[in-house]
């Protein structure tokens, strides 16, 4: 999911100049100052037209892949910004900060010019720890997101396409995984695997195995509906192989659902891993936001009032989750266009009230 496309019409919330020019082209009563002969846009600021945006600008048709991209809204922009900044911090941050494990004799010092987020009990720099921990959490989120999406796509789409016994077997399997209580199982497995072999991938695998089932059921229902459509019959009729029917004819119509489930799986994985690490059951010798919180808890950060130790990792988890959720709401609008219509109607009502 990327940001705006060239075909995106200017939004009322966007640059006001672009808005006015668009409306000016539509209404003949608009001042000529904007597109005067030889007169550039510079000059007097464009006065608002008499009926400002009574009709929202018509959306140009979007074709093919573009139609899969969500409409740019302020909320989506906020979500993309949050996710982008945190990802950037996790990617680049570790190269710019010092060693997070260096122990100094300035334990539990508040934020200063040198340590902008203060230090831990043992004098380690919180900001460096935060950079490495963000990277660790993002790694977990990405691995689990990909694994869970692949698993749910395989069991959901392939089973529903095959039908018959395979479908029954696959839905039985996903039903079983659905009723397994995720976090307790994860705790049991993590407790069972000895800490030395409890690496990043073990935790990721456990989280992925407990989180794919719900998505598989949604995908199965969607596939059952798409599979019935005539264009799928038509492509079978022309002799397409099953994998091509699935990948080329059915899958594109499920992409918004898959994207939304991927985003959700990433949120769930980061939260789940943070929970595990906080309980001390996370991946050993790895650094994530959850382990930071674990050490902050062990170091009595809260009773000692060392807010700079536990607030930043908590805030990053919260903001990243919020950003992904905002992106997910925009993807939901592609799956269910009625949501978009509702938003347009709200906007229309608002502009009517203002004018």
């Amino acid at each position, binding site marked *: 999911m990327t940001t705006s496309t060239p075909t995106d019409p200017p939004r009322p919330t966007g640059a006001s100049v672009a808005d006015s020019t668009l409306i000016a082209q539509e209404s003949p009563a608009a001042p000529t100052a904007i597109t005067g002969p030889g007169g550039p846009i510079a000059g007097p600021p464009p006065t608002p037209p008499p009926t400002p945006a009574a009709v929202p600008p018509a959306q140009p*048709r979007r074709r093919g892949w573009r139609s899969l991209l969500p409409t740019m809204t302020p909320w989506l922009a906020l979500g993309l910004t949050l996710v982008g900044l945190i990802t950037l911090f996790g990617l680049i941050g570790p190269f710019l900060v010092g060693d997070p494990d260096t122990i100094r004799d300035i334990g539990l010092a508040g934020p200063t010019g040198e340590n902008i987020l203060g230090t831990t009990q043992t004098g380690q720099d919180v900001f460096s720890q935060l950079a490495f921990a963000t990277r660790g959490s993002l790694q977990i989120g990405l691995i689990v997101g990909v694994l869970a999406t692949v698993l749910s796509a395989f069991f959901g789409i392939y089973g529903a396409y095959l039908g018959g016994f395979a479908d029954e077997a696959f839905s039985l399997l996903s039903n079983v995984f659905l009723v397994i209580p995720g976090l307790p199982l994860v705790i049991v497995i993590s407790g069972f695997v000895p800490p030395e072999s409890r690496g990043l991938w073990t935790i990721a695998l456990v989280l992925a195995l407990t989180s794919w089932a719900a998505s598989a059921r949604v995908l199965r229902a969607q596939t059952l509906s798409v599979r019935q459509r005539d264009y799928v019959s038509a492509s079978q*009729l*022309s002799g397409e192989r099953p994998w091509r029917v699935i990948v080329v004819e059915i899958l594109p*119509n499920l992409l918004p659902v898959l994207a939304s489930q991927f985003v959700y799986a990433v949120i769930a994985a980061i939260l789940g891993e943070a929970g595990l690490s906080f309980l001390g059951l996370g991946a050993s010798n790895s650094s994530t936001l959850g382990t930071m919180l674990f050490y902050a808890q062990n170091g009595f950060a809260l009773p000692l009032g060392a807010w700079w130790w536990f607030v930043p990792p908590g805030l990053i988890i919260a903001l990243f989750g919020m950003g992904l959720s905002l992106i997910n709401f925009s993807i939901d609008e592609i799956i269910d266009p009625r949501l978009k219509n509702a938003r347009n109607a709200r906007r229309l009502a608002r502009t009517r009230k203002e004018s």
Partner: protein
Amino acid sequence: MSSVKVTDLTKDYLIRDGLRRRRMRAVNKVSFELTPGRTVALVGESGSGKSTIAKLLTRLERPTSGTIDVLTDDGARVAGSAYRREVQMVFQDPFASLNPFHSVAHHIARPLRLHKRTQDAASTRSEVLAMLERVNLTPAEEMAERRPHELSGGQRQRVAIARALAPGAQVLIADEPVSMLDVSIRLGVLNLLGRLQRESRLAVLYITHDLATARHFSDDILVLHHGRVVERGPADAVILDPHHDYTKLLALSAPDPNRLGGVVRSTAPDRDAIDDSVCYDHHLGDWVPSGTQEVAA
């Protein structure tokens, strides 16, 4: 050229009714032949088994019993992937039969490549444009890049016809090809089908519930009721001189400007008393038990 010989075609569906299962016979011992250059119309109300026959002929479903043989000119049976090339179908709903995600060019290019009609991208492209021009979708260059939602119903149905003909099909199943279209463009699509049929001597099975277009467009008519053929014969004979009660009922239910007052109930056949077990064969000029094969005249 190839012809189709359908013998005693029967299809049962299993219906789960709580714990019990019962069989529903959708098609009951239907036999007919499709020959190059001729159109056979399959007429009947909803649920009479018309679309099931289409699915059986296109091998989207397996028949419970009976045989479907596609024979080439020298009498050889067509099997396997060649069957997919020979027998193609135009679906009823042009809004559902094209994938909203893909361009018009994709829909026509895939069958071309699958059946090795074209070898490389350039020849596929030129063949796609030629197909579009054959179905009167011009300018072809522009149409090829469009997506289904940018086309009207009639244009979509033309794309669907082009897709069906792309593999080089000799047998075309048209499942109510115009019932979802505006009345004003129905004739255009039907005339296009007729022209393509004459050009490539296609064998066409025209499935419809509309007696008027069946007479206009086809050579022979089979009237289907509850999965059985109840009347068969040349189009004019079946429409103008219906013998079976069900055919009479169908003819009466079509709107007729001379009968604006409505059907006189007493003269209409009783719907509940329709006898499916007999079939009037206009070629023989006599009643036969339905399910027996037509004797070549």
